[in-house]
């Protein structure tokens, strides 16, 4: 256990939090622009996303992971609007890796942090408006008419005055030779045909007829399948193993270690490999985490908070409230189990993997094989869920190691079981927090927050190591840098750094208690616990002040703020204060990655069973591109939040995870899904991401309702009566 402490006043923290992770490239120079992976000698291709072919096809390169959040439809709707063509008429392709596709917030080709729409909206409009203007300019030259008299619609250039029409493709050859326009004009909102209206998810048909290909579905000719048996104890090692029985089993091609803590079984079929793996007789060295449990981690966190409070010498004022909240570990558990396929053919390597970060996956494979990353081609596909898990390239590294060991020029597909997935994830961090506030009548005068838990940024630097550090850098050096980067880690303070309410001066402290359990970004990250803590605490303060919980919130918000409006709208839509008989309501507010949300939950409690009947959610995500898809993703966040606060929990015993499959890591099912109403409010703000937005406010809305129902204040996630 390692500890690092920090305390600061909550002033200007929000301005620096969130994105400033401080990723430094090994080579700090701007990357040179190589040709696009899809470069063509005949198409119009003025940017990395769009191309128009001479036979009049428009092709879009999707550089983001489509993992359910609807970004494929979102980005294509934006470009379709500027091109004047229906979104479904644009051909969709998964892009390769290219510097043009780097996420400007993270300098990686990564789909994360609800950042796609916020970072891509403007570049997509520009990309499409440029293509349109080039085609119009080429047609104007060809026809000898002014550009201003031309328009494009549905793939055709139109000169209204003369009635002349021709397919866009006819002008590709001329357009290719034109200089790029500097500031192409955008369509004005009153001309919009698709943005704000288009509600059809483009890949839906493929996802209902079984034809959509996820990483696990891609099986190049000659593929062999491997399973990996990894030491169940985090930080443990392989001592020895006996594979005599496994080697003699049907279909088995190879058995052996792939690193110091894992044994792989390669077979012709998954099931043969799995059956053989079950017979392995393996002796593990449990390593440094032997004896570590969820309880010991929580008590280490409490001790660290005690020390922090003693150090800060914080007196408790009369009439104040001081409480402790906790949250346990969580697994991502996307429905598609982890898998990757690697084919080594001479010095050329192909990688098929469902990933949120193809450059991290490519780097991990290159590092495992000891080759240059540009030898590795990453092939895109749909992701069967991501939620942060598929930023990590552990399974791609597994596939590379097995392929290297196997040593034959055939593709090797590694498939993790659900048990592997739940026991070898990097988890939502477990934390212990203490909240304290002083009330002046019914107004919060001052407050403090301190939190103890693992550092995500520390783990992040290990995850992105293959992309940002030279391959030869020793592990000890990587470790040193990761520890140093912890100092800039404010992930455990998310939402606390932007409390939304006017609560007077705050003192915020955090201490990292490094448990050794791998932790990572999990849908909504710090909001997944801090929004619960803060919004529950607001209710506690309202109770103490004897003010109704909505009124207490509004008292601490500017009257005409979006926050106030969303809370009032949610209250009105949910008939706040007038729940059905036997039901109780709770309310919560959230701001995450620029999205603002309020929710009212309607709950009943029978014995120890919490039943959520209805959740009403009001949302401001700026300008909405695809309203119904946004609503589905908010519903998704609500169910995720519900699942997380009523069911899911990963617990640790003896340095390993106790859960193994969906019987003991239960997810919400249809019969417990509440009725959901989602209201998107009109907003002129630039669009923001929606993927993570609704997760955080579900638990506090439910917990606050449970308090009304029972008088019992629940201060731990998951919620247990």
């Amino acid at each position: 256990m390692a500890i690092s402490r920090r305390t600061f006043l909550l002033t200007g923290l929000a301005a620096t939090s969130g994105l400033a992770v401080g990723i430094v490239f090994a080579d700090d120079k701007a990357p040179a622009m190589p040709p696009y992976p899809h470069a063509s000698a005949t198409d119009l291709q003025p940017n990395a996303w769009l191309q128009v072919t001479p036979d009049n096809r428009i092709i879009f390169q999707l550089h983001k992971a489509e993992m359910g959040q609807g970004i494929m439809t979102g980005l294509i709707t934006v470009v379709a609007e500027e091109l004047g063509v229906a979104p479904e008429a644009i051909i969709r392709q998964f892009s390769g890796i290219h510097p043009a596709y780097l996420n400007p917030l993270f300098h990686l080709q990564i789909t994360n942090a609800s950042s796609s729409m916020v970072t891509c909206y403007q570049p997509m409009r520009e990309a499409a408006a440029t293509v349109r203007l080039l085609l119009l300019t080429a047609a104007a030259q060809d026809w000898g008419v002014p550009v201003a008299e031309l328009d494009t619609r549905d793939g055709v250039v139109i000169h209204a005055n003369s009635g002349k029409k021709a397919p866009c493709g006819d002008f590709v050859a001329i357009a290719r030779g034109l200089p790029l326009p500097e500031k192409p004009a955008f369509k004005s909102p009153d001309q919009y045909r698709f943005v704000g209206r288009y509600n059809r998810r483009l890949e839906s048909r493929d996802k209902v007829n079984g034809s959509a290909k996820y990483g696990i579905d891609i099986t190049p000719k000659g593929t062999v399948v491997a399973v990996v048996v990894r030491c169940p104890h985090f930080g443990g090692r392989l001592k020895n193993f006996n594979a005599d029985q496994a080697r003699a089993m049907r279909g088995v091609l190879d058995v052996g270690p792939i690193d110091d803590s894992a044994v792989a079984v390669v077979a012709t079929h998954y099931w043969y490999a799995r059956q053989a793996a079950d017979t392995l007789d393996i002796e593990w060295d449990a390593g440094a985490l032997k004896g570590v449990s969820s309880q010991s981690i929580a008590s280490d966190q409490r001790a660290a908070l005690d020390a922090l409070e003693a150090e800060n010498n914080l007196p408790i004022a009369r009439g104040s409230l001081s409480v402790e909240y906790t949250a346990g570990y969580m697994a991502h558990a996307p429905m598609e189990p982890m898998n990757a396929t690697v084919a080594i053919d001479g010095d050329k390597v192909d990688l098929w993997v469902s990933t949120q970060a193809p450059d991290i996956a490519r780097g991990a494979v290159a590092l495992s094989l000891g080759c240059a990353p540009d030898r590795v081609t990453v092939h895109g596909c749909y992701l069967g869920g991501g939620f942060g898990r598929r930023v990590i390239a552990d399974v791609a590294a597994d596939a590379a190691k097995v392929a290297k060991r196997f040593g034959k020029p055939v593709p090797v597909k590694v498939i993790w079981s659900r048990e592997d997935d739940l026991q070898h994830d990097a988890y939502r961090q477990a934390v212990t927090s203490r909240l304290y506030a002083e009330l002046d009548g019914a107004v919060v005068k001052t407050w403090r927050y301190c939190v103890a838990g693992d550092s995500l940024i520390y783990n992040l630097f290990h995850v992105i190591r293959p992309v940002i550090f030279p391959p030869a850098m020793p592990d000890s050096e990587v470790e040193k840098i990761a520890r140093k980067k912890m100092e800039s880690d404010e992930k455990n303070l998310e939402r606390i750094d932007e409390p939304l309410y006017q609560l007077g001066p705050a003192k915020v402290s955090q201490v990292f208690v490094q448990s050794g359990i791998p932790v990572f970004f999990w849908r909504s990250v710090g909001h997944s616990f801090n929004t619960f803590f803060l919004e529950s605490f607001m209710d506690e303060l309202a109770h103490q002040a004897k003010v109704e919980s909505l009124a207490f919130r509004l008292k601490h918000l500017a009257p005409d703020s979006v926050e106030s409006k969303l809370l009032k709208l949610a209250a009105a839509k949910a008939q706040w204060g007038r729940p059905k008989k036997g039901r109780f309501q709770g309310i919560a507010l959230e701001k995450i990655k620029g999205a603002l949300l309020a929710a009212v939950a309607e709950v009943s409690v029978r014995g120890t069973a919490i039943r959520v009947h209805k959740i009403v959610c009001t949302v401001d995500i700026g300008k909405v591109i695809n309203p119904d898809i946004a609503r589905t993703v908010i519903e998704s966040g609500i169910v995720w939040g519900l699942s997380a606060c009523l069911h899911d929990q990963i617990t640790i015993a003896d340095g390993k995870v106790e859960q193994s499959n969906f019987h003991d890591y239960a997810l919400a099912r249809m019969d417990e899904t509440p009725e959901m109403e989602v209201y998107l409010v009109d907003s002129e703000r630039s669009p923001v991401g929606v993927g993570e937005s609704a997760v955080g406010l579900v638990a506090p809305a439910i917990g606050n309702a449970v308090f009304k129902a029972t008088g019992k204040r629940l201060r731990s996630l998951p919620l247990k009566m």
Partner: protein
Amino acid sequence: MVNINVNGEEHSLDVDPAMPLLWALREELQLTGAKFGCGVGLCGACMVHLDGVPVRSCSTPLAEAANRRVTTIEGLDSAIGKTLQDAWVDENVAQCGYCQSGQIMSAAALVAANPQPSDKDIEAAMSGNLCRCGSYQRIKRAIHSAAKAHASGEKS
């Protein structure tokens, strides 16, 4: 050798008869619509029909399917199957979409047996299918609308 009929085609498979049907479909027949999710019959992503009855192919030995009719999402060409798929598209059910083959196979069996299911019927029939994206409310809506469309289609 195990003989099975999948989506109307006869196949003779030279694999261990104890191999789960799921892996025979995916790895021998390259039918990847049925998905691996948990391997132990808890999530329903692998749902297929065996003589019209929904079964979890991850926990059904291939031998059990011998000389019987297997229908996968790729071969779901019944009128109700098509209507459900259309409703799924109209209601924007799929998000990541990974579980949806299994959801639709469960729904198709439900509506075939119970043409006008209530909310409770749908919950009872569908609660064995997990969706990590939480598309449940949309699934329920899609089943209702498909059942309605199917019923009016049969009348006309």
